[in-house]
């Protein structure tokens, strides 16, 4: 299953009911599929939730993932994204002693800003494509980040 692993983003529309998330994650672990990130939230004014799963695998594995997901009873729709807009949020906490204007400038380059400034720490955020978030985090490494959190990707087909 390790041949030609390709990164893939899959969106899943599911009935928002108890244990539906376990059904999805059990499917991935039970069949040996990979989850890079997973986000889930209810779709406004509906009985459904939307999951965005970043996964990887060969073409055959990805095809199986979408089919097996679809086979789950509470799953309404599965999108295997081809041409999408994809975004992720990252937040980083720094000591206030770091160079705030540098950090501010970097955040702006990645659709972000400083969102909180406290007595000892500041929190900066960025919202961008996951690949660019990687770069953002690399760029901020030298400012001694204390804590980093990434949201996982969300995506919409164009």
């Amino acid at each position: 299953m390790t041949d030609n692993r390709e990164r893939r983003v899959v969106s899943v529309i599911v009935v928002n009911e108890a244990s539906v998330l376990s059904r999805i994650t059990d499917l991935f672990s039970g069949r040996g599929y990979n989850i890079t990130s997973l986000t889930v939230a209810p779709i406004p004014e509906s009985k459904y939730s939307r999951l965005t799963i970043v996964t990887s695998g060969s073409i055959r594995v990805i095809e199986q993932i979408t089919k097996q997901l679809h086979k789950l009873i509470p799953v309404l729709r599965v999108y295997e994204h081809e041409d999408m807009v994809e975004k992720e949020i990252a937040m980083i906490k720094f000591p206030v002693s770091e160079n705030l204007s540098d950090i501010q400038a970097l955040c702006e380059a990645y659709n972000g800003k400083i969102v909180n400034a406290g007595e000892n720490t500041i929190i900066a955020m960025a919202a961008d494509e996951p690949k660019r978030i990687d770069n953002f985090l690399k760029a901020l490494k030298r400012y001694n980040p204390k804590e980093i959190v990434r949201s996982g990707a969300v995506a919409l087909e164009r």
Partner: protein
Amino acid sequence: MQISGAQMVIEAFIAEGVDTVFGYPGGAIMNVYDEIYKQNKFHHILNRHEQASIHAAEGYAKASGKVGVAMITSGPGFTNAVTGLADAYMDSIPLVVVSGQVPMSLIGTDAFQEIDAVGISRSCTKHNYLVTDAKDLPRILKEAFYIARTGRPGPVHVDIPKDVTAQIEEFDYNIKLDLETYKPHTNGNPRQIKKAIEAIANASRPLFYLGGGIINANAAYEVREFIQKSGIPAVETFMARGVLSYDDELLVGMLGMHGSYASNMAMSETDLVIALGARFDDRVTGKLSEFAKNADVIHVDIDPASISKLVNADFPIVGDVKNVVNDMLTQIEKIDALKYESWRETIKNFNALHPLAFHEDSERIKPQWVIKRVGELLGDDANISTDVGQHQMWAGQFYPFTRPRQFISSSGLGTMGFGFPAAIGVKAACPEKISINFTGDGSILMNVQELMTAVEKKIPVINIILNNNFLGMVRQWQTLFYDKRHSETDLSVQPDFVKLSEAFGGVGYRVHTKEEFDTALKDAIEKNVVAFIEVIVHRMENVMPMVPAGGSLFNMMLLEKKESK
């Protein structure tokens, strides 16, 4: 009408036409058992172990084509049932299994006999429910039956806390189901079907690859018509035994690890595989890269996830195999049966070269003989269940099956202990047929307590124990692949099977010769009570042919030719 959750379960069963429920009571399910006591619309069969209840419900479902129903309590009652759920899931058997759960207020507190039942059954059921409000119960039960029997069938588990079975609510079973997220495709795409028919017409060595899905879809007679009119040879999987009658000229045999030489060679030489309700299991395909190497593949299946999972389908058709075959039959005139004459001849020659056979032995009965003999004596009059191991493969190879739903076996999961309780379920579904369970000296002990069930409910299952004092299939692998190190497979220490059966109130026979076997079988049928017929068979017999695990289908170990003196 305002009734309790427990009464709702009973009313739903009645509305679904359930006539037999297999189960075992316990604390959390007592409210429902109280209602079972008060009704007379269906039978309850008390198995002596929850695993057996599920297998019995599986046997019932497979033999009848209806949804099998079982009922169990929480905690250990449920965990005992898990093997049965997994077995039914692997073989796509429609079941509704209702379990009791501790009251809602105690869930999550590690209460007495509490286990996260839906958490465990999630990965071995088609779907499951934890009912948190009796208001939802009519809908959930109706959905459970619907989901179990439609699409690719499978077990559905409904876990009901004790206070929910006591809760009184309005019951209306005439609700319309609105399953927006579950809509199985039953009709094949007409364009794909047309293309498939063209591919068949253009092929020179096409081969039907028949799977258990045909039996689930009740499509065996349509498939028989298709095969007869097209003149195309067919191989069956173990699950599909009985789709074609054993004497059908176009039936090549069973394929796979213990398939016939001709079947495996036909699959290796074909230029077009027509897979109907089969899922390219590893025990069928052997080494995937060598499987039907030069063939295109038509794959008809109700489950889209089965298509191109292991072998790429050139002509994928998602749909109910009955509908698809009926659609194909309307275009049958495009197929010229005469075209495949030389292909049929080739396959005949394969069969003549290495026919499915065994060598008789002057000292001990050969296990294969027993299977053949029961076939000669009972044939169509018997339904055949099996346990798991060598005897199971011999039953698949040598019994002359004549109809679908005649053969009931644990195929995908390979569950030892399946056969006896399943045969009880089969007999409950088809009382007019003799219910035979071929079993081994290993398997029979795994649900031997069902003697009590069969005696109590007067269910005359005949268990034919092929006793080689070995865990035979594992012993065979050890002999062939582990340099004859027979680790923990020698079962020389055994109970007295005759006395064991008698101790429960059944009958028992120990048989050393062919004459004794005929007499014992005749006597057991006449006595019409549960029976053990222990046949002392040759100890070291191997199931042949054999494709070693991971090997190519055409590289079979074959029955050694008898040395000529």
